[in-house]
């Protein structure tokens, strides 16, 4: 089942085009990572999906038009937009009471269960909690909602490495069950690398790369080339080449691993390296067009 479907989704702020007619489709049960440089349009895309901003083009989330029906949509969609948006004046028990009061799919007992595993005091105000605890609280609230789509926009920004690790661990172990769908944006690519099922790069308002993680592993190969084999390796048309400690590192798309192994050390590319390659190529293309 399709959870998110966008066709020609476009959004401009004055002369700045934040989303340039993107097409997007996310199926149920996927964990999609939306990766892009600052100002690439990630947050704008998420805001459109969550009904926080008007847009042009077609957008359908769980069968609804997000801008027209935000409140109904939020019965099935949850989001953590940035860390620290929980109201600082609120007490922990008040967040539980309020959610239980307004959210039909909020399971209070479940939230209490998650909180019991933390050191968060129910009488504390949010402002008295550490940044990591606020993130834990928000995650506990969100995981207690039986939602079909969860959207996370930089959910771990500014947290220390232990909390970040724990955050994604709980998400996978206690929340994700294959019927839910998660869309996450982050700059800390390494941390979500093993969490994702799908990957999408977005740059200057366009989707420049889109593939599943299985495909990524089978298609892309990184080769650290022996110096004497550089010319031969280049003949196989790497999509990107960079220098590292005096050696060439090339990235190949759909080239036989066995064949490459003869030119140097072969390994599966990391998301970060792939991202740099794709974005560099984009810049190269843009400059080529400009010339």
């Amino acid at each position, binding site marked *: 089942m399709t959870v998110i479907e966008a066709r020609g989704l476009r959004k401009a702020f004055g002369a700045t085009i934040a989303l340039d007619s993107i097409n997007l489709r996310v199926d149920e049960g996927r964990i999609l990572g939306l990766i892009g440089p600052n100002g690439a349009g990630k947050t704008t895309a998420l*805001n459109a999906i*969550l009904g*926080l*901003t*008007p847009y042009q083009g077609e957008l359908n989330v769980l069968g609804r038009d997000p801008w027209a029906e*935000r*409140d*109904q*949509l*939020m*019965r099935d969609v*949850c*989001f*953590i*937009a*940035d860390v*620290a*948006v*929980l*109201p*600082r*004046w*609120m*007490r922990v028990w*008040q967040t539980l*009471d*309020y*959610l239980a*009061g*307004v*959210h*039909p*799919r909020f*399971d209070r007992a*479940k939230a209490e*269960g998650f909180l019991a595993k933390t050191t968060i005091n129910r009488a504390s105000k949010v402002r008295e909690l550490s940044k990591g605890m606020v993130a834990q609280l*928000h995650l506990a609230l969100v995981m207690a909602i*039986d939602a079909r789509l969860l959207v996370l926009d930089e959910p771990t920004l500014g947290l220390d490495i232990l909390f970040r690790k724990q955050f994604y661990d709980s998400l996978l*172990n*206690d929340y994700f*069950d294959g019927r839910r769908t998660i869309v996450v944006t982050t700059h800390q690519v390494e941390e979500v690398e093993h969490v994702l099922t799908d990957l999408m790069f977005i740059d200057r308002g366009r989707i420049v790369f889109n593939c599943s993680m299985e495909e990524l592993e089978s298609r892309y190969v990184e080769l650290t080339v022996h110096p004497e084999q550089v010319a031969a390796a280049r003949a196989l048309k790497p999509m990107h080449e960079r220098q590292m400690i005096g050696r060439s590192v090339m990235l190949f798309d759909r080239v036989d691993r066995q064949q490459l192994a003869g030119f140097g050390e072969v390994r599966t590319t990391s998301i970060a390296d792939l991202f740099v390659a794709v974005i560099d190529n984009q810049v190269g293309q843009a400059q080529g067009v400009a010339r």
Partner: protein
Amino acid sequence: MNTESNAVPESPRDPQATESQVSLSAVIPESRRLCWSVRRELWENRSIYIAPLAVAGVTLFGFVIATFGRALAVSDLAQRRAVLEEPYTFAALLIMATTLVVAVIYCLDALHGERRDRSILFWKSLPVSDLTTVLSKASIPLVVLPLLTFGIIVAMQVIMVLLSSVVMLASGLSPAELWAQLSLFQMSMLLYHLVVVHGLYYAPIYAWLLLVSGWARRAPFLWAGLPLLAIGLVEKIAFNTSHFAAMLESRIAGGGEAVPFPMAGNAAMHHELTLLTLGRFLISPGMWIGLAVAAAFLTGSVRLRRYQGPI
């Protein structure tokens, strides 16, 4: 441990259970969301009830001193009675003034604060519509504060009457007239004044403040006042008239004589005449134009809430 705790909520999730959950979900009526949202406002803005309660407390403290100190120091019984009867209206006015100030401050912050501290992103992640949110915020000055003011004034005056009755009885004076302060007529006049003037007649003022607080990126206080001042000035310079200022003034004055303030001495007011005047005020064009303007401003606020994000 984790996998186990994961499995427990999973297993009873047979299709029937999911269905009953789904049907439950449709059951939360919008009115219940509204109630919770109003409660939320009271959690956030505790000054709504703390400020008038504090003023009532201070007033009572002063009244105790006046009753047992000043009144008893006056040996002339008629004067003693005067001292005891004097502070009722003043005390009520003090509470009303407090809640008016609270209402203005509340409105100016209501739709601005949530954008300033980015918590609007959390509120918008919940299935509560912008309309419900704005209505819950508007209901604080329009409904909650007038009723709260009434409750606090009545409670305060009951305590005051009890205290002065003690002194009066001890002085051999009859407290009967004092109890007239608490007559049904007096109380209903007070309630009427609060609900009709503070709630309905002031509605466009509060709605305007809410609109500004939803629109302004900063300094909503200035934005609330400056345009009104500008309109008044332009009118004065261009036409040398001051209709706009006069209109604002009469609005703030609460419709002038149309609604007599429930004064201590006004108990003798003719019921019929008063009811007639009150009724006329309720159907006056000023009242209904005001309500229409308030509705327009609130509609604007709902729209702004939909478009605005954090600032």
